[in-house]
Protein backbone atom coordinates (compact mmCIF):
# COMPACT_ATOMS: atom_id res chain seq x y z
CA UNK A 1 0.00 0.00 0.00
CA UNK A 2 1.29 3.43 -0.96
CA UNK A 3 2.09 5.61 2.01
CA UNK A 4 0.26 8.93 2.04
CA UNK A 5 2.50 11.95 1.58
CA UNK A 6 2.45 14.75 4.11
CA UNK A 7 2.87 18.27 2.75
CA UNK A 8 4.06 20.25 5.76
CA UNK A 9 5.47 23.33 3.96
CA UNK A 10 2.69 23.42 1.43
CA UNK A 11 0.08 23.44 4.20
CA UNK A 12 1.79 26.49 5.69
CA UNK A 13 1.77 28.25 2.32
CA UNK A 14 -1.91 27.43 1.91
CA UNK A 15 -2.68 28.88 5.36
CA UNK A 16 -0.82 32.09 4.48
CA UNK A 17 -2.70 32.42 1.22
CA UNK A 18 -6.16 31.63 2.58
CA UNK A 19 -6.15 33.27 5.99
CA UNK A 20 -4.63 36.65 5.23
CA UNK A 21 -6.78 39.04 3.28
CA UNK A 22 -4.88 40.59 0.39
CA UNK A 23 -7.49 41.83 -2.03
CA UNK A 24 -11.03 43.07 -1.62
CA UNK A 25 -12.36 39.58 -1.01
CA UNK A 26 -10.97 37.13 1.49
CA UNK A 27 -9.45 33.79 0.50
CA UNK A 28 -7.47 32.76 -2.53
CA UNK A 29 -8.33 32.04 -6.16
CA UNK A 30 -7.99 28.47 -7.36
CA UNK A 31 -5.42 29.27 -10.05
CA UNK A 32 -3.28 31.13 -7.50
CA UNK A 33 -3.35 28.15 -5.18
CA UNK A 34 -2.43 25.84 -8.05
CA UNK A 35 0.44 28.10 -8.99
CA UNK A 36 1.87 28.42 -5.47
CA UNK A 37 1.23 24.89 -4.17
CA UNK A 38 1.17 22.80 -7.32
CA UNK A 39 -1.18 20.36 -8.97
CA UNK A 40 -1.77 18.45 -5.72
CA UNK A 41 -3.33 21.44 -3.96
CA UNK A 42 -6.56 19.50 -3.34
CA UNK A 43 -4.65 16.93 -1.27
CA UNK A 44 -2.89 19.72 0.60
CA UNK A 45 -6.23 21.35 1.41
CA UNK A 46 -7.64 18.02 2.58
CA UNK A 47 -4.74 17.68 5.01
CA UNK A 48 -5.19 21.28 6.12
CA UNK A 49 -8.87 20.59 6.76
CA UNK A 50 -7.88 17.72 9.03
CA UNK A 51 -5.97 20.18 11.22
CA UNK A 52 -8.67 22.84 11.06
CA UNK A 53 -11.38 20.38 12.07
CA UNK A 54 -9.94 20.40 15.57
CA UNK A 55 -10.36 24.19 15.66
CA UNK A 56 -13.93 24.14 14.32
CA UNK A 57 -12.78 25.65 11.05
CA UNK A 58 -12.83 24.47 7.44
CA UNK A 59 -11.59 25.48 4.01
CA UNK A 60 -14.32 25.45 1.38
CA UNK A 61 -14.53 26.14 -2.32
CA UNK A 62 -16.92 28.82 -3.53
CA UNK A 63 -17.69 29.89 -7.06
CA UNK A 64 -16.72 33.39 -8.05
CA UNK A 65 -19.33 35.58 -9.67
CA UNK A 66 -19.20 38.37 -12.23
CA UNK A 67 -16.44 36.75 -14.19
CA UNK A 68 -17.41 38.60 -17.32
CA UNK A 69 -14.54 37.59 -19.49
CA UNK A 70 -14.08 34.00 -18.51
CA UNK A 71 -16.35 31.32 -19.83
CA UNK A 72 -15.74 29.09 -16.84
CA UNK A 73 -16.56 30.56 -13.41
CA UNK A 74 -13.40 30.95 -11.32
CA UNK A 75 -13.39 29.21 -7.95
CA UNK A 76 -12.09 30.67 -4.69
CA UNK A 77 -11.06 28.94 -1.49
CA UNK A 78 -11.98 30.51 1.82
CA UNK A 79 -11.65 29.53 5.47
CA UNK A 80 -14.81 29.64 7.53
CA UNK A 81 -16.28 28.46 10.79
CA UNK A 82 -17.32 24.82 10.56
CA UNK A 83 -19.84 24.95 13.41
CA UNK A 84 -22.01 27.83 14.55
CA UNK A 85 -21.59 30.89 16.73
CA UNK A 86 -23.74 31.36 19.79
CA UNK A 87 -25.77 34.55 20.18
CA UNK A 88 -23.32 35.91 22.75
CA UNK A 89 -20.35 35.17 20.50
CA UNK A 90 -22.05 36.85 17.55
CA UNK A 91 -22.63 39.92 19.71
CA UNK A 92 -18.96 39.91 20.67
CA UNK A 93 -18.07 39.90 16.97
CA UNK A 94 -19.92 43.22 16.68
CA UNK A 95 -23.25 42.00 15.37
CA UNK A 96 -26.52 43.30 16.79
CA UNK A 97 -29.51 41.00 17.20
CA UNK A 98 -31.72 43.11 14.94
CA UNK A 99 -29.03 43.25 12.26
CA UNK A 100 -28.71 39.47 12.17
CA UNK A 101 -32.49 39.10 12.20
CA UNK A 102 -32.73 41.59 9.31
CA UNK A 103 -30.15 39.57 7.37
CA UNK A 104 -32.13 36.39 8.03
CA UNK A 105 -35.35 38.04 6.82
CA UNK A 106 -33.66 39.49 3.71
CA UNK A 107 -32.09 36.20 2.72
CA UNK A 108 -35.19 34.11 3.28
CA UNK A 109 -37.29 36.62 1.34
CA UNK A 110 -34.83 36.50 -1.55
CA UNK A 111 -34.73 32.69 -1.50
CA UNK A 112 -38.48 32.33 -1.85
CA UNK A 113 -38.38 34.86 -4.67
CA UNK A 114 -35.81 32.81 -6.59
CA UNK A 115 -32.90 34.88 -5.36
CA UNK A 116 -34.09 38.28 -6.62
CA UNK A 117 -36.44 41.00 -5.38
CA UNK A 118 -37.07 44.71 -5.82
CA UNK A 119 -35.30 46.84 -3.23
CA UNK A 120 -38.49 48.64 -2.21
CA UNK A 121 -40.26 45.30 -1.65
CA UNK A 122 -37.46 44.09 0.57
CA UNK A 123 -37.46 47.40 2.45
CA UNK A 124 -41.19 47.06 3.00
CA UNK A 125 -40.89 43.62 4.56
CA UNK A 126 -37.99 44.73 6.78
CA UNK A 127 -39.81 47.88 7.88
CA UNK A 128 -42.45 45.74 9.57
CA UNK A 129 -39.85 44.16 11.83
CA UNK A 130 -37.11 46.73 12.38
CA UNK A 131 -38.46 50.14 11.37
CA UNK A 132 -38.28 52.26 8.24
CA UNK A 133 -35.03 54.19 8.53
CA UNK A 134 -33.10 51.20 9.76
CA UNK A 135 -34.33 48.97 6.94
CA UNK A 136 -32.80 51.07 4.17
CA UNK A 137 -29.54 51.54 6.08
CA UNK A 138 -29.19 47.85 6.80
CA UNK A 139 -29.83 46.82 3.19
CA UNK A 140 -27.05 49.20 2.14
CA UNK A 141 -24.66 47.80 4.74
CA UNK A 142 -25.46 44.22 3.64
CA UNK A 143 -24.73 45.21 0.06
CA UNK A 144 -21.44 46.76 1.15
CA UNK A 145 -20.44 43.65 3.06
CA UNK A 146 -21.26 41.40 0.09
CA UNK A 147 -24.26 39.62 1.60
CA UNK A 148 -26.52 41.21 -1.01
CA UNK A 149 -26.07 42.57 -4.51
CA UNK A 150 -27.86 45.49 -6.14
CA UNK A 151 -28.07 46.27 -9.84
CA UNK A 152 -28.90 49.51 -11.70
CA UNK A 153 -32.59 48.60 -11.78
CA UNK A 154 -32.68 48.44 -7.96
CA UNK A 155 -33.08 44.67 -7.96
CA UNK A 156 -31.51 42.96 -4.98
CA UNK A 157 -29.98 39.51 -5.30
CA UNK A 158 -27.96 37.17 -3.10
CA UNK A 159 -24.32 38.26 -2.79
CA UNK A 160 -21.03 36.34 -2.85
CA UNK A 161 -20.62 36.39 0.93
CA UNK A 162 -24.00 34.79 1.51
CA UNK A 163 -23.09 32.00 -0.90
CA UNK A 164 -19.86 31.49 1.03
CA UNK A 165 -21.20 31.76 4.58
CA UNK A 166 -24.86 30.77 4.70
CA UNK A 167 -26.38 27.34 4.23
CA UNK A 168 -29.54 28.54 2.51
CA UNK A 169 -31.40 25.22 2.63
CA UNK A 170 -30.71 24.98 6.34
CA UNK A 171 -31.91 28.56 6.85
CA UNK A 172 -35.28 27.97 5.19
CA UNK A 173 -35.69 24.66 6.97
CA UNK A 174 -35.01 26.13 10.39
CA UNK A 175 -37.25 29.15 9.81
CA UNK A 176 -40.16 26.90 8.90
CA UNK A 177 -39.49 24.61 11.83
CA UNK A 178 -39.16 27.45 14.36
Amino acid at each position, binding site marked *: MEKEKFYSNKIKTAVHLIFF*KRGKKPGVKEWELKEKIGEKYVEVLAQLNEFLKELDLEVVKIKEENELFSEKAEARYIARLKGNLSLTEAKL*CGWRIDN*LAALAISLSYLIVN*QGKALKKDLEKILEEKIGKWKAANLIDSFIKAGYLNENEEKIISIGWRTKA*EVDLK*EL*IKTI*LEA
Partner: protein
Amino acid sequence: MKIKKAVLDIIKTCKAVEERRLNPFLIDFLSSIKILRKYLALCKTFKDYCLDGKALNALSKVIELQNAQLLFQSSKLYVNPEILKRKIYSLSLEDLTNVFLKSWHPIIEMEQLTLQSIINGLSYWRNFSPYRKIKIVKSNSKAPTIVNGKTLRKNENLSSLMVKLWKEMIELTGEKEKIDYWMFIRKNDFSTTVKRAYVTSFLISYGYAFLIKCGDKLYLSPNKKFEKINYNEQVSFPISIKKEEA
Protein backbone atom coordinates in the same frame (compact mmCIF):
# COMPACT_ATOMS: atom_id res chain seq x y z
CA MET B 1 -54.11 52.17 -33.49
CA LYS B 2 -55.77 49.82 -31.05
CA ILE B 3 -53.51 46.90 -31.93
CA LYS B 4 -50.34 48.93 -31.41
CA LYS B 5 -51.54 49.84 -27.93
CA ALA B 6 -52.11 46.14 -27.21
CA VAL B 7 -48.51 45.36 -28.31
CA LEU B 8 -47.19 48.13 -26.05
CA ASP B 9 -49.23 46.67 -23.20
CA ILE B 10 -47.65 43.25 -23.79
CA ILE B 11 -44.16 44.81 -23.56
CA LYS B 12 -45.13 46.66 -20.39
CA THR B 13 -46.52 43.53 -18.72
CA CYS B 14 -43.45 41.49 -19.69
CA LYS B 15 -41.23 44.20 -18.20
CA ALA B 16 -43.20 43.96 -14.93
CA VAL B 17 -42.63 40.21 -14.92
CA GLU B 18 -38.92 40.70 -15.52
CA GLU B 19 -38.80 43.11 -12.58
CA ARG B 20 -40.49 40.45 -10.43
CA ARG B 21 -43.58 42.55 -9.91
CA LEU B 22 -45.83 39.96 -11.59
CA ASN B 23 -46.02 36.21 -11.67
CA PRO B 24 -44.74 34.98 -15.08
CA PHE B 25 -47.63 32.52 -15.27
CA LEU B 26 -50.16 35.36 -15.31
CA ILE B 27 -49.38 36.19 -18.93
CA ASP B 28 -51.78 34.76 -21.51
CA PHE B 29 -49.41 33.61 -24.24
CA LEU B 30 -51.98 32.48 -26.78
CA SER B 31 -53.78 35.81 -26.90
CA SER B 32 -50.46 37.71 -26.85
CA ILE B 33 -49.18 35.75 -29.84
CA LYS B 34 -52.48 36.33 -31.67
CA ILE B 35 -52.11 40.07 -31.10
CA LEU B 36 -48.55 39.98 -32.39
CA ARG B 37 -49.61 38.05 -35.51
CA LYS B 38 -52.27 40.63 -36.27
CA TYR B 39 -49.81 43.43 -35.69
CA LEU B 40 -47.19 41.81 -37.93
CA ALA B 41 -49.70 41.73 -40.79
CA LEU B 42 -50.22 45.48 -40.37
CA CYS B 43 -46.53 46.38 -40.02
CA LYS B 44 -45.37 48.88 -42.62
CA THR B 45 -42.36 50.76 -41.37
CA PHE B 46 -39.07 49.63 -39.86
CA LYS B 47 -40.19 51.02 -36.51
CA ASP B 48 -43.28 48.78 -36.55
CA TYR B 49 -41.16 45.70 -37.19
CA CYS B 50 -38.81 46.71 -34.36
CA LEU B 51 -41.74 47.00 -31.95
CA ASP B 52 -42.97 43.57 -33.00
CA GLY B 53 -39.48 42.14 -32.43
CA LYS B 54 -39.26 43.81 -29.04
CA ALA B 55 -42.58 42.33 -27.93
CA LEU B 56 -41.58 38.87 -29.11
CA ASN B 57 -38.26 39.15 -27.27
CA ALA B 58 -40.06 40.22 -24.07
CA LEU B 59 -42.40 37.23 -24.34
CA SER B 60 -39.46 34.85 -24.77
CA LYS B 61 -37.89 36.25 -21.60
CA VAL B 62 -41.10 35.55 -19.72
CA ILE B 63 -40.99 31.93 -20.92
CA GLU B 64 -37.43 31.76 -19.60
CA LEU B 65 -38.65 33.03 -16.23
CA GLN B 66 -41.48 30.51 -16.21
CA ASN B 67 -38.92 27.77 -16.78
CA ALA B 68 -36.76 29.11 -13.95
CA GLN B 69 -39.74 29.24 -11.62
CA LEU B 70 -40.73 25.65 -12.40
CA LEU B 71 -37.18 24.48 -11.74
CA PHE B 72 -37.10 26.45 -8.52
CA GLN B 73 -40.45 25.09 -7.36
CA SER B 74 -39.19 21.56 -7.87
CA SER B 75 -36.06 22.29 -5.81
CA LYS B 76 -35.71 21.85 -2.07
CA LEU B 77 -35.56 25.63 -1.54
CA TYR B 78 -39.12 26.22 -2.64
CA VAL B 79 -41.47 27.54 -0.02
CA ASN B 80 -44.73 29.35 -0.53
CA PRO B 81 -43.83 33.05 -0.07
CA GLU B 82 -46.99 33.73 1.92
CA ILE B 83 -46.23 30.97 4.43
CA LEU B 84 -42.71 32.28 4.89
CA LYS B 85 -43.96 35.87 5.29
CA ARG B 86 -46.37 34.77 8.00
CA LYS B 87 -43.61 32.83 9.71
CA ILE B 88 -41.27 35.83 9.65
CA TYR B 89 -43.94 38.13 11.12
CA SER B 90 -44.73 35.66 13.88
CA LEU B 91 -41.10 35.16 15.00
CA SER B 92 -39.36 37.60 17.33
CA LEU B 93 -36.05 39.22 16.35
CA GLU B 94 -34.18 37.02 18.79
CA ASP B 95 -35.77 33.86 17.39
CA LEU B 96 -34.89 34.92 13.87
CA THR B 97 -31.30 35.57 14.96
CA ASN B 98 -31.04 32.15 16.58
CA VAL B 99 -32.42 30.54 13.44
CA PHE B 100 -29.91 32.40 11.31
CA LEU B 101 -26.98 31.49 13.54
CA LYS B 102 -27.71 27.80 12.97
CA SER B 103 -27.01 28.15 9.25
CA TRP B 104 -24.30 30.79 9.41
CA HIS B 105 -20.60 29.92 9.05
CA PRO B 106 -18.74 33.25 8.96
CA ILE B 107 -15.56 33.59 6.94
CA ILE B 108 -12.25 33.85 8.78
CA GLU B 109 -10.27 36.77 7.47
CA MET B 110 -7.26 38.51 8.93
CA GLU B 111 -6.84 42.09 7.89
CA GLN B 112 -3.40 43.63 7.81
CA LEU B 113 -1.88 47.03 7.17
CA THR B 114 -0.43 47.52 3.75
CA LEU B 115 1.21 50.57 2.24
CA GLN B 116 -1.84 51.14 0.08
CA SER B 117 -4.26 50.91 3.02
CA ILE B 118 -2.17 53.45 4.97
CA ILE B 119 -2.22 55.84 1.99
CA ASN B 120 -6.00 55.37 1.62
CA GLY B 121 -6.52 56.03 5.34
CA LEU B 122 -4.36 59.13 5.31
CA SER B 123 -6.10 60.65 2.32
CA TYR B 124 -9.48 59.89 3.93
CA TRP B 125 -8.68 61.70 7.18
CA ARG B 126 -6.92 64.58 5.44
CA ASN B 127 -10.08 65.35 3.53
CA PHE B 128 -11.87 66.20 6.77
CA SER B 129 -11.75 69.73 8.17
CA PRO B 130 -10.97 69.68 11.89
CA TYR B 131 -14.16 69.76 13.94
CA ARG B 132 -12.96 72.70 16.04
CA LYS B 133 -12.47 74.84 12.93
CA ILE B 134 -15.91 74.02 11.58
CA LYS B 135 -17.43 74.89 14.96
CA ILE B 136 -15.65 78.26 15.09
CA VAL B 137 -16.70 79.19 11.56
CA LYS B 138 -20.31 78.25 12.30
CA SER B 139 -20.58 80.02 15.66
CA ASN B 140 -18.52 83.15 14.99
CA SER B 141 -19.26 85.06 11.84
CA LYS B 142 -16.26 87.32 12.44
CA ALA B 143 -13.81 84.45 12.37
CA PRO B 144 -11.26 84.62 9.57
CA THR B 145 -12.16 82.69 6.47
CA ILE B 146 -10.24 79.52 5.88
CA VAL B 147 -8.01 79.72 2.85
CA ASN B 148 -8.47 76.46 1.08
CA GLY B 149 -6.90 75.03 -2.04
CA LYS B 150 -9.65 76.42 -4.26
CA THR B 151 -9.07 80.01 -3.14
CA LEU B 152 -5.35 79.61 -3.65
CA ARG B 153 -5.92 78.29 -7.13
CA LYS B 154 -8.25 81.22 -7.81
CA ASN B 155 -5.50 83.60 -6.72
CA GLU B 156 -3.04 81.88 -9.02
CA ASN B 157 -5.49 82.28 -11.87
CA LEU B 158 -5.98 85.93 -11.01
CA SER B 159 -2.26 86.70 -11.07
CA SER B 160 -1.80 84.98 -14.41
CA LEU B 161 -4.77 86.93 -15.76
CA MET B 162 -3.26 90.15 -14.41
CA VAL B 163 0.04 89.49 -16.19
CA LYS B 164 -1.81 88.67 -19.41
CA LEU B 165 -3.91 91.82 -19.25
CA TRP B 166 -0.94 93.99 -18.28
CA LYS B 167 1.02 92.73 -21.31
CA GLU B 168 -2.01 93.36 -23.52
CA MET B 169 -2.27 96.89 -22.14
CA ILE B 170 1.40 97.59 -22.98
CA GLU B 171 0.91 96.17 -26.46
CA LEU B 172 -2.21 98.20 -27.14
CA THR B 173 -0.75 101.40 -25.77
CA GLY B 174 2.33 101.03 -27.97
CA GLU B 175 4.20 104.28 -28.19
CA LYS B 176 1.32 106.27 -26.79
CA GLU B 177 1.24 106.80 -23.08
CA LYS B 178 -2.36 105.90 -22.41
CA ILE B 179 -5.36 104.03 -23.70
CA ASP B 180 -9.05 104.70 -23.31
CA TYR B 181 -10.40 102.76 -20.31
CA TRP B 182 -13.62 101.62 -22.04
CA MET B 183 -11.81 100.71 -25.21
CA PHE B 184 -9.49 98.50 -23.20
CA ILE B 185 -11.98 96.66 -21.05
CA ARG B 186 -14.84 96.36 -23.54
CA LYS B 187 -15.15 93.01 -25.30
CA ASN B 188 -17.86 91.27 -27.26
CA ASP B 189 -19.83 89.97 -24.29
CA PHE B 190 -20.80 91.52 -20.98
CA SER B 191 -19.25 88.88 -18.72
CA THR B 192 -15.82 89.24 -20.38
CA THR B 193 -16.05 93.03 -20.04
CA VAL B 194 -16.84 92.76 -16.34
CA LYS B 195 -14.03 90.23 -15.88
CA ARG B 196 -11.53 92.55 -17.61
CA ALA B 197 -12.72 95.51 -15.49
CA TYR B 198 -12.30 93.38 -12.37
CA VAL B 199 -8.74 92.30 -13.23
CA THR B 200 -7.86 95.84 -14.35
CA SER B 201 -8.90 97.16 -10.94
CA PHE B 202 -6.27 94.85 -9.42
CA LEU B 203 -3.66 96.09 -11.91
CA ILE B 204 -4.39 99.64 -10.80
CA SER B 205 -4.44 98.72 -7.11
CA TYR B 206 -1.09 96.91 -7.31
CA GLY B 207 0.55 99.63 -9.36
CA TYR B 208 0.85 97.82 -12.68
CA ALA B 209 -1.29 100.54 -14.28
CA PHE B 210 -2.52 104.04 -13.58
CA LEU B 211 -6.03 105.34 -13.96
CA ILE B 212 -6.07 108.87 -15.36
CA LYS B 213 -9.19 110.99 -15.33
CA CYS B 214 -9.37 113.63 -18.02
CA GLY B 215 -12.68 115.47 -17.87
CA ASP B 216 -15.35 112.87 -18.52
CA LYS B 217 -12.92 110.42 -19.99
CA LEU B 218 -10.95 107.72 -18.23
CA TYR B 219 -7.58 106.51 -19.45
CA LEU B 220 -5.30 103.68 -18.48
CA SER B 221 -1.54 103.98 -18.54
CA PRO B 222 0.59 100.83 -17.99
CA ASN B 223 3.46 101.01 -15.54
CA LYS B 224 6.26 99.41 -17.51
CA LYS B 225 8.71 99.62 -14.62
CA PHE B 226 6.79 97.39 -12.23
CA GLU B 227 6.82 99.97 -9.53
CA LYS B 228 5.18 98.98 -6.28
CA ILE B 229 2.18 100.87 -5.12
CA ASN B 230 2.32 103.58 -2.55
CA TYR B 231 -0.55 102.66 -0.26
CA ASN B 232 -0.88 106.20 1.14
CA GLU B 233 -2.02 107.43 -2.23
CA GLN B 234 -4.56 104.65 -2.74
CA VAL B 235 -7.93 105.91 -3.82
CA SER B 236 -11.19 104.18 -4.44
CA PHE B 237 -12.67 104.89 -7.83
CA PRO B 238 -16.01 103.21 -8.53
CA ILE B 239 -16.86 102.65 -12.17
CA SER B 240 -20.22 101.15 -12.98
CA ILE B 241 -20.62 98.99 -16.04
CA LYS B 242 -24.00 98.95 -17.66
CA LYS B 243 -25.02 96.09 -19.90
CA GLU B 244 -25.66 98.49 -22.78
CA GLU B 245 -22.14 99.84 -22.52
CA ALA B 246 -20.53 96.40 -22.81
